């Protein structure tokens, strides 16, 4: 009995510590990539910063919940489409932020002298992502 309680206690400590570390890391990751400032800039909603912070936390906890639970909800396909679309937009911004952080573009434009064609190269990345993703889901995994 006492040993059980002790083990439970250790589990709580481990879980809490792990959660804290992952949570900090996750928020730091999002901050470094600058997706939230970018969204605020696009939607001109500086004043809602606190709301967005709360959204990120709520989303993380909700995600944690659905990755550990085993229930089902019987939703129509429409919800799936919406879900997939939003997921894609978010991931797209993530990928774009990474490409940018790696400074591929400034280098390309200076080294090879492609200043005038920058938008075309941007489109290459854009279509590359869509094509790669579609190819993977529709052919590659089957």
């Amino acid at each position, binding site marked *: 009995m006492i040993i059980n309680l002790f083990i439970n206690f250790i589990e709580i400590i481990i879980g809490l510590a792990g959660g804290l570390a992952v949570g900090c890391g996750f928020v730091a990751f999002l901050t470094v990539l600058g997706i939230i400032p970018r969204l605020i*800039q696009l939607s001109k909603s500086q004043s809602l910063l606190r709301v967005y912070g709360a959204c990120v936390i709520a989303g993380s906890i909700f995600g944690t919940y659905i990755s550990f639970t085993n229930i089902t*909800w019987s939703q129509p396909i429409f919800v799936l489409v919406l879900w997939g679309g939003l997921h894609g937009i978010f991931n797209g911004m993530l990928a774009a932020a990474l490409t940018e952080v790696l400074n591929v573009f400034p280098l390309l434009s200076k080294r090879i002298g492609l200043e005038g064609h*920058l938008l075309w*190269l941007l489109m290459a990345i*854009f279509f*590359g992502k869509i094509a790669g993703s579609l190819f993977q*889901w529709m052919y590659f995994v089957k």
Partner: protein
Amino acid sequence: MSEIVYLRMKRNVEMIGLQAVQLRHIALISTPSQFKRELEKTTLYRISKEDRNIVIIDSFLVIDHLNSLYPGIEFQLIGPSQTIIRITKRKKAPSILIVSFVWLLLFIGTAMTIMNFHYDVSMQEVQQKLHYLLTGEQEEYPLWIQIPYSFGLGIGMLLFFNHWFKKRFNEEPSPLEVEIFNYQQDLDQYVSYYENKLNDNKPIH
């Protein structure tokens, strides 16, 4: 009373081939003096082969030179303290071959990285589980999530970069443009220090 000439150095100048650099090429001047035309035509420097791509003209040297030519005039400097002259042979457009190669490189490269990323985070499994969670049916290929996801991926990148071909969503510069600007500025800062002969630490003989 001495006349005052206000000098504003240009930050970046591109010049083609080997030619003489005149004051009007590298600076804007404002003065009531009748010498204005003459001042603008003053030759400050001759670009030689040894200069290769970049010459830095420091405002100190400019003022020094002008002072010796026009002793009665006072020079006041405003703006940047040096001009970076980039010497280009002749403007030539990058060949279509190189552009298409880079285009293909980026296209294939990004396609592969996104696929690797999906494997790395086991996205297929997550989406299968999500499909089961939302609909209650097991589905090995939850395309109803995956296809909107794929297009969303592109839309997200467009939102981030603020561009759809030549069209922009609003007036603000995109993070990409800011990044390129910063990179250019870093380069400028570097060359204006290391290519500037005044910053040589060698002892003067």
